[in-house]
């Protein structure tokens, strides 16, 4: 039940909240605005906010100079590939743990979680060395596999918490009606599991897209995704704020939009079901 609140109070809340929201969002807004300025306007003092000559030339320069599309494609390939692969491996595991739990299910789930907490830097050299030995340093497929393994615990956990919410009675009813395991999975379970699987795909795509330890350390030219492309701007040459902004905007825009759809799943996915 919402309580009656005076309009003044509500207006005050609104003003404060919008103010803070604007402040927190400002760096992103500023980046987007700067990407449409010329380099001179980008560093102007006093700064120009909206009253500048909007231009798209930075986007053209970034694409022309560094073949932005290749980095973008690598990001899509690595994030998408690792997520889809992870879900394919995780669905059966999560399904069996949610519907045919055994005494060890809890231990297995917690153990999976513990692998997620292994600090990456602790195994940096072994992975680096193995990549060299196997000839897959700077290789997109290797990163697909590595990011899949990194996010697999989260994927299993998310799917598990979703599957557990599907009432077992429905499965039992299907069994009573003579459904076999395969029919049970395809006709009963799948339709109910699709929203959970979709949310899992979404959140893990975002996590993989933004992963910046392995993608920075294991790529050079061929497999470098956007994280590495942006990092190449860390040694500045001349005026580059507007170009940096254009590159940044292109790197974060798709994920911001996806991210806004996945707010709810974010809480569930990253707290392992402990906060809902």
């Amino acid at each position, binding site marked *: 039940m*919402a309580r009656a*609140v005076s309009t003044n109070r509500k207006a005050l*809340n609104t003003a*404060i*909240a*919008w103010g*803070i*929201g*604007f402040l*927190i969002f400002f*760096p*992103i807004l*500023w980046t987007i605005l700067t990407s449409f300025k010329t380099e001179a306007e980008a560093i102007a*003092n006093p*700064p120009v906010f909206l009253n500048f000559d909007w231009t798209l030339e930075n986007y053209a320069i970034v694409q022309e100079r560094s073949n932005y599309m290749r980095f973008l494609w690598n990001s899509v390939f690595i994030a998408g590939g690792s997520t889809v692969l992870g879900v394919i*491996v*995780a669905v*059966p*595991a999560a399904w069996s*743990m949610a519907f*045919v739990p*055994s005494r060890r299910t*809890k231990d297995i789930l*917690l153990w*999976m979680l*513990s692998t997620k*907490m*292994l*600090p*990456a*830097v602790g*195994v940096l*050299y*072994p*992975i*680096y060395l*193995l990549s060299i030995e196997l000839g897959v340093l700077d290789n997109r497929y290797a990163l697909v596999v590595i990011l899949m*393994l990194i996010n697999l615990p989260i994927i299993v956990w998310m799917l598990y918490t979703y599957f557990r919410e599907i009432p077992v009675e429905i499965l039992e009813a299907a069994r009573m009606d003579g459904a076999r395991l395969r029919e049970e999975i395809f006709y009963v379970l799948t339709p109910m599991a699709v929203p959970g699987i979709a949310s899992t795909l979404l959140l893990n795509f975002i996590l993989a897209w*933004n992963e910046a*330890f392995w993608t*920075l*350390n294991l790529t050079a030219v061929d497999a470098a995704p956007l994280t590495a492309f*942006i*990092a190449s701007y*860390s040694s500045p040459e001349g005026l*580059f*704020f507007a170009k*940096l*902004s254009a590159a*940044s905007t292109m*790197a*974060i825009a798709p*994920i*911001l939009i996806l*991210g806004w759809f996945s*707010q709810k799943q974010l*809480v569930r996915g990253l707290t392992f*079901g*402990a906060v*809902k």
Partner: protein
Amino acid sequence: MATQHSRSAARMMMTPAVFLLLVWMLVPLSMTLWFSVRRFLPLRGGDQGFVGLENYIRFISSSAFWPAIQTTLVIVGGILLISVIFGILLALLLDQPMWGQGIVRILIIAPFFVMPTVSALVWKNMFMDPVNGLFAHLWRFFGGEPVVWLSDAPIGSIILIVSWQWLPFATLILLTAIQSLDSEQLEAAEMDGASPLARFGYIILPHLSRAITIVVLIQTIFLLSIFAEIFVTTGGAFGSRTLTYLIYQRVLESQNVGLGSAGGVYAIILANIVALFLMRIVGKNLDN
């Protein structure tokens, strides 16, 4: 209930995930353990044999170790403090009735989705640059001398950048927890004359305690291994070298794999201590 047949099918279905994670965990981990007891310099003589615990002792007694630990603790602690305190305040604010709440939420959560290298570079250049950054403009406007943020206050700058990314996460989780609070309880307390502060201290805060613990633990695990934010801003210079960054430098920059691996084992132990607490809470939650 589950038949023998479905049980063995279930085990089969679990096998790929368990097997992959087992390999992913055991192979690199045992390699790290192996390297950590050897003198191993890939570019200067390769593997020169077993040295016992020498790497472990040298890693701890090197002059870079304690400063790195201190930096790590200050950075992780600072970000945790900022994100928990402001996270609670923001969550309380967002829980109030207002217009356009959904939009404000979207604005506040956005930084969490920004790629770490992007947020670090945007802050480094467009805000903290001592000549052309917005902060420098602002300082000059008020007659001050612009600060060279990343060399004069590197740790504070990194805390600011990373807090900007993680405050949204804390806010979102705490907001979710606040919204699950039974509002009748609050109304009853209000009618009994409890002040807003008392309501916060005796009802809201205890209700949030579990969510706060989870925020602290999860963030600690992620923050212990922040890398990209340091990589593209200071590169570990000016006393901003954390334990993770120190290990990275030992392993890949100076190619002293034995020493770096010993450091890696320390990092794993440190993360496991935190993980143990988190797992206990998550495990308890699985039981109900």
